[in-house]
């Protein structure tokens, strides 16, 4: 684990995820679909703080977000997986600060998250029209990938500086 999780204010920024999910600003939507704020926050966090911290952050975010939605479909497994995966990339690979890389990782994460929800809703019989789910998946991945280079790179640089100072 890194040192970022020991900084209370850094962890507290995670509260912005459920708040933004609830506020759901209309100007940050594509075809009525909001970005995946959990992916946008978890990506820089896991890249800086490592796989264990990323997985735990994914678990915490998933539990909160599951409580904000209808039905029993869960975001926890994929968010934990993404946190762990991105943490490993941050530990092993070269520093990822290019917009292209961040955007691509965010799109992949959003697609995985959307696909897991799509399958869960489909198996539960709560998705009579699969095309509607695919539309949501594509729109959410697109807007998440577009916002990631802006938001994630800022958070990544800030948190990496804090982590370097503390360590």
């Amino acid at each position, binding site marked *: 684990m890194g040192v970022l999780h020991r900084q209370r204010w850094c962890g507290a920024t995670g509260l912005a995820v459920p708040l933004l999910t*609830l506020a759901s600003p209309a100007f940050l*939507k594509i075809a*009525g679909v909001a970005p995946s704020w959990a992916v946008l926050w978890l990506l820089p966090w896991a890249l800086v703080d490592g796989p264990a911290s990323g997985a735990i952050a994914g678990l915490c975010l998933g539990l909160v977000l599951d409580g904000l*939605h*209808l*039905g029993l479909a869960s975001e926890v497994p994929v968010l934990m997986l993404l946190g762990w995966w991105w943490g490993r990339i941050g530990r092993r690979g070269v520093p990822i600060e290019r917009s292209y890389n961040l955007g691509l990782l965010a799109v992949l994460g959003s697609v995985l998250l959307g696909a897991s929800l799509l399958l869960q*809703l489909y198996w539960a019989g709560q998705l009579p029209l699969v095309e509607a789910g695919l539309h949501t998946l594509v729109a959410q991945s697109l807007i998440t990938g577009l916002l990631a280079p802006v938001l994630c790179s800022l958070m990544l640089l800030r948190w990496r500086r804090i982590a370097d100072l503390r360590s």
Partner: protein
Amino acid sequence: MSGRILRVPLLRKVAEAWPWWLLLLALVGVRLSKGAGFMDAYALLSRPFWPGSAQSEWLRSAQHLQDQASLQQLQRDNERLRGMLALDRSGAGRVSAPVISREPGGWWQQLELGKGSVDGLRAGDPVLAPGGLIGRVSSVTPSTARVQLLTDSGSRLGVWVARVQRHGLLVGQGTARPRLQFLENDTGVRPGDVITTSPASTLVPPNLLVGVVQSVNESLAPAPDAAVQLSAPVDAVDWVQVVTR
């Protein structure tokens, strides 16, 4: 010759009164034409004194009041008759609640309301917006309530097509337009038909406007279905009314 005739005193007087003869002729014309021209002239002259827009508003307002009064009377009658048929829900009231979060698109179609169990809201309560029914309360906290919109893919609601006297099941699709599924063939439903809640419903208020049929898929087996446009604007509603039990 003519000069000789005018020398007769009686005829001379008749000839001299020619303006009066003309007036009489005009009056006969008015009589025969049922006042044409006369009424037009009157309308032209009296136009500045016609009732203005304010009086027209008063009339409309009076008409509105009369409609409201008759609507209330009908509602009272309806409640009394439903009570006699044991179809009413005792103690039903309406609570106005602000919409504090909305998610009409995405994986779930839901609203969050700024009132909860403290204000008497419970899971299953119907939620109304200007225009008609939009959903039902899914869960409550002491100060908030989550509403599952009719467009949500998990939403199912029995509805009524009044024109053809048919029941149907309104199923959310995860899109802006839920589908109306029928149980039998030859429903006779066509685009433009109005969808309401069932007149015999006890779960939601009866005869509430839900939406309008947009298109009908007759070729579907075993029974046709229809796309429905909801009458309440879910994207724009800021306040809703929750029917509490």
